[in-house]
């Protein structure tokens, strides 16, 4: 589970930090809706339901005892609530996804999106300012030129660090339905955005035009039975992307084949287990997230009860399946009634693709070590939040015989769900979002 090797039984996860309000009264706007590390792991971005983006930066410290902490680097309002006058409906400002662009210069760029509009933000630092103008005082007042007797060259002097976020591009009016995914292409020029029925291809510089590459909208909307739930570009092959559906299928498309990729190149689908068939089978097979592995050979999908690893060369079934919370299979009816069955959990890989992580209820999250075939359940809670406190593995008891320290299924809090998690691209640092708090855990450094 370590970035540089080592098995999962070697890693002990410790609490590092928690961000967000302490009180139990959660303001709706503070609900975290997305979490994403940048490519170096130095920056960690979160988006919330109020349309704000908060970026944390890892301070470079030389202490060998513990890893550096993440502190607030920049906060800005990315999206505002809008009103669609034609449909008489509000457009939520909730940030659905954030994706970082690879860094090209001193500034950082990210794409953030709500249901309808994608924005490119530039985050830049300013730590110097010019001083010594000839015609302007330090406070900005103009100097009468007639009083100037000597000339000097203005110089840059250090100032307190200022982090500025400015919107550089706004990609709007391309989606009729709600955007669920954005993914940046490995060509560093284009990116895709996916809504319930369509996927569009954009150039990062061009905002008034996008190309539709997938369209599954039926001619007659009454015949609609399947929607797009997630999409992602391949990490290395700039012509390849995948999208998942509400029926549990994943389609891999090659943009070289045709301009409109309605016909897939590969269709990944696992045949249904007839013994588990119920009225809820389709709902729980709906894929909520799809992520390529860093090496580009595998992809991971998350449906309601499990995480599946697929080999891109085998379409017939996944190569690995991990049960996240199988004890919920008997409770599907009540989870349907309270809408929890529609919760969209995300999943993520660690830096070397050896471990995958996803969230669950009761502020639990799960890690699966692929090589060692081990899994662990951990909890993000204030109780376990003393500095460097090692997280204790949790266990849920499905039947009536509850052992000590176990939690019975009936005691689970289904309002406390961990939908968004992120793993540092190189190190064993993870960011786990509860409803309105962001927990950062690290492996124990001995």
């Amino acid at each position, binding site marked *: 589970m370590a970035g540089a090797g080592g098995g999962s039984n070697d890693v002990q996860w410790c609490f590092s930090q928690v961000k967000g309000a302490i009180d139990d009264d959660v303001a709706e706007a503070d609900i975290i809706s997305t979490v994403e590390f940048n490519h170096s792991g130095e920056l960690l971005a979160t988006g919330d339901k109020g349309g704000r983006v908060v970026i944390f930066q890892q301070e470079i410290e030389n202490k060998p005892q513990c890893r550096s902490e993440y502190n607030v680097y920049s906060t800005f309002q990315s999206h505002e609530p809008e009103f669609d006058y*034609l449909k*008489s409906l*509000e457009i939520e400002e909730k940030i659905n996804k954030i994706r970082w662009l690879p860094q090209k210069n001193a500034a950082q760029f990210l794409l953030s999106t709500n249901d309808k509009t994608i924005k490119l933000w530039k985050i830049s630092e300013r730590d110097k300012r010019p001083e010594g103008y000839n015609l302007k005082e330090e406070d900005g007042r103009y100097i009468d030129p007639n009083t100037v007797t000597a000339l000097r060259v203005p110089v840059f002097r250090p100032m307190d660090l200022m982090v500025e976020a400015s919107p550089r591009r706004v990609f709007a009016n391309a989606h009729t339905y709600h955007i669920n995914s954005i993914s940046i292409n490995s060509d560093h020029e284009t990116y895709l955005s996916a809504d*319930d029925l369509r996927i569009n291809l954009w150039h990062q510089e061009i905002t008034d035009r996008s190309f539709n590459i997938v369209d599954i909208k039926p001619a007659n*909307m*009454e015949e*609609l039975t399947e929607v797009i739930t997630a999409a992602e570009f391949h990490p290395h092959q700039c012509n390849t992307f995948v999208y998942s559906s509400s029926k549990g299928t994943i389609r891999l498309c090659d943009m070289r084949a045709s301009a409109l990729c309605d016909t897939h190149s590969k269709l990944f689908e696992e045949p249904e287990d007839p013994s588990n068939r119920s*009225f809820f089978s389709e709902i729980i097979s709906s894929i909520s997230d799809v992520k390529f592995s860093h090496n580009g050979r595998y992809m991971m999908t998350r449906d309601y009860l499990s995480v599946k690893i697929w080999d891109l060369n085998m379409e017939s079934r996944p190569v690995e399946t991990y049960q996240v919370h199988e004890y919920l299979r008997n409770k599907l009816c*009540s989870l349907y009634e309270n809408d929890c069955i529609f919760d969209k959990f995300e999943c993520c890989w660690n830096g070397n693709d050896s471990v995958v992580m996803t969230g669950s209820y009761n502020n639990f999250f799960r890690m699966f070590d692929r090589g060692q075939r081990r899994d662990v359940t951990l909890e993000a809670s204030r109780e376990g939040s003393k500095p460097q406190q090692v997280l204790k593995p949790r266990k849920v008891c499905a039947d009536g015989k509850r052992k000590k320290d176990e939690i019975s299924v009936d005691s689970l809090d289904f309002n406390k769900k961990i939908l968004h998690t992120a793993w540092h691209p190189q190190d064993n640092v993870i960011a786990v979002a509860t409803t309105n708090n962001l927990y950062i855990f690290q492996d124990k450094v001995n």
Partner: protein
Amino acid sequence: MFPKGTKRKFSDSGDEPAAGGEDVNQPSSVAVRMLSSYSLQRQSLLDMSLIKLQLCHMLVEPNLCRSVLIANTVRQIQEEMTQDGTWQIMTQALSAANAAAQCSADRLVATEVLCRQTEATQGEQVLKPFPAVGSEGCPAEEEEEVVVEEEGEGGPQPPTCQAPLAWTPAGKRKMDSRTAEQVFGTFEIKNPAPSPDPALEELFSDVDASYYDLDTVLTGMQSAPKMGPYDLLESLSSHGPSPLSSSTSCRSDLNELDHIMEIIVGS
């Protein structure tokens, strides 16, 4: 939480072993009991799903993925009910009760539910095109045309989006809000059932308790309808026409089902 030994999966309830004390001389009654339990559960799931489809967020566009999944579930139930004849019986009983009803048993209910308007905009002047699936299917240009026509000619126009039935949105909207209130009001009234079948009652107590316990255990949860399936079962399924129950109280309670069918079918 559940009564011990009871794992009720909808597809499995037919295969569950009967409770202890089964009389081997009466296998048919046990089978009948299991079947009716399954039908009731299926019916309550259907009712729950239809309510979920009707209750849309007032201000924000409904989640299309969720709507599609619920609609597919409804279709699945309907197909199964059509196969075992329950659906025809239900719709025939309704059309017998209401001569003016335009029940079309062939048409899948879910699509019509998806295409109907929400109760969101009562009293709004601007014509709201189909929300949910129907309106989202209209590209922006179509919607603009509809609005322009509206303003130009005054009276309500049927939307240009494809609709299974022609209807005037403004009038329909009012009726919907009224019928919706009636429907919800009906749900919250627990009709004093005139001595229902004791066998069915016994079944209800099993299922009801489990649902009720679920509700209390999973506290703080937001169920979309404030009444739980407990109430649904009581007021609807127990009085709904089923092949196994020939209760005459069905007729008076058919009005409640009728309201629901009106909303569904848009008559």
